[in-house]
């Protein structure tokens, strides 16, 4: 046991924890993005609200969710521990700033991570926390005519606190009643400052992953002449371009579509 403790207390062990939690968070944002693309489906939140209900009431996902919150905290905590140790390693700095070739993102991971942490706190308190705790959050009833496939929606009042979702079929009409998180999304993304903050945070995400994704592979020791270019390409184009752009498109899209 002491040997395992020793492994994770070593400089490389701490970096291993950073790499593993970081890569786990990378896989999470793929899933998160996939689900949130439902926001673009223009169905008045039907798909999105059902998805939000599924995420919060399907036990395996709830377990993974707690693993995820733990990963975020451990990643941030170890970042602080390593930064303090790294600062201690150079108590007297240089008079002339270092001019060595190193990418901006690689030198500012702490700053970028701090922006992301602030973003996660605000983002989760707005959507995750209020979804679980805000008693004023309303419900929606979606009626789909199974013959024509047309869906209409109205506000719904379940009348009791424990209600989360119901699905029934009456006279070829499917009735789905579910908590209306979509209305909160519309409300939040109608604020210009909120949208700007989200876009900045996604910029930070981009630069954080531009360095972080490939750096995690280096830390794990997975560097290979044949595969490292693939890791770089995925880290750059998928994690630092496509994912942040798609996430940033959501608040921008909602700001312009639902302004009136």
């Amino acid at each position, binding site marked *: 046991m002491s040997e395992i403790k020793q492994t994770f207390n070593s400089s490389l062990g701490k970096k291993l924890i950073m790499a593993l939690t970081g890569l786990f968070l990378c896989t999470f944002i793929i899933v998160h993005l996939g689900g949130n693309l439902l926001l673009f489906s223009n169905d008045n939140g039907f798909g999105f609200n059902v998805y939000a209900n599924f995420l919060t009431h399907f036990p395996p996902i709830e377990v993974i969710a707690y693993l995820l919150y733990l990963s975020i905290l451990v990643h941030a905590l170890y970042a602080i521990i390593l930064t303090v140790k790294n600062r201690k*390693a150079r108590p007297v700095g240089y008079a002339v700033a270092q001019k060595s070739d190193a990418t901006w993102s690689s030198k500012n991971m702490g700053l970028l991570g701090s922006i992301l942490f602030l973003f996660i706190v605000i983002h989760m308190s707005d959507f995750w926390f209020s979804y679980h705790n805000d008693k004023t959050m309303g419900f929606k009833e979606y009626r789909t005519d199974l013959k024509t496939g047309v869906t209409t929606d109205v506000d719904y009042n379940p009348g009791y606190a424990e209600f989360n979702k119901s699905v029934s079929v009456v006279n070829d009409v499917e009735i789905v009643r579910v908590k209306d998180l979509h209305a909160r999304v519309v409300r939040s993304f109608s604020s210009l400052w909120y949208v700007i903050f989200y876009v900045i945070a996604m910029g930070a995400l981009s630069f954080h992953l531009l360095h972080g994704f490939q750096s995690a592979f280096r830390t794990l*020791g997975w560097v290979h002449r044949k595969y490292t270019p693939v890791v770089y390409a995925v880290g750059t184009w998928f994690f630092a371009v496509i994912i942040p752009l798609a996430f940033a498109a959501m608040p921008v899209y909602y700001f312009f579509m639902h302004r009136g």
Partner: protein
Amino acid sequence: MSNGNMNLTLKVWRQKNAQTSGKFVTYKAESISPDMSFLEMLDVVNESLTHKGDEPINFDHDCREGICGMCSLYINGHPHGPKRGVTTCQLHMRTFHDGETITIEPWRASAFPVVKDLAVDRSAFDRIQQAGGYVSVNTGGVPDGNAIAIPKVIADEAFNSATCIGCGACVAACKNASAMLFVGAKITQLGLLPQGQPERYRRAQSMVAQMDEEGFGSCTNTGACEAECPKEIKLTNIARMNNDFFSAKLFREEEIHEDKH
């Protein structure tokens, strides 16, 4: 200057010893030939300081042909100066221009305490090396040359790592004062070759443990070390070290002090 020589202003870190705090002192270096090496330029300055009865500037040097790893100096924001792939002793004054101000600092790391002025104590590297950076050769008959076949690509890779001269520029360049490029090069050099296999996993553990004990920082893969290394040691060495270390710690039986049992 009619003869092509240069006049320079030097801002040099002067520090009596590790116990006292230091400060920058400005010197004029006059009529410096562009063909001089950086250390020869300092020799000229020191000679005039000595003639004036001042204490000459203390700096490390030995072979002056770029292979001993003794010279250091953090020059204008770069370990070993602005030119790539050279040590300070191989840096020529033609890299600078007439009238330039050159700031010279010692390597900055808690594991490299200043001995005097620009000279730092790099014995932390010696202790890391002694912890496992060797191959034990037992007595017996001399093995035939080339008896063990080594693929060329592996031999080349090991040789590239072996070019590390242990100067500490990687530590000086790293924003975290991490020694992982040095340790990675030493672990890789031996870990790639057949002769290094018996001690490979013990070596990775003991050298990393000693590195941590010396108080170096941790790598964040910025690549500043690779850019500043006078021998152009690649960042891949750090990944190889990580690979050996994690293999050792997570999947191997070898312990650091197995030989003491």
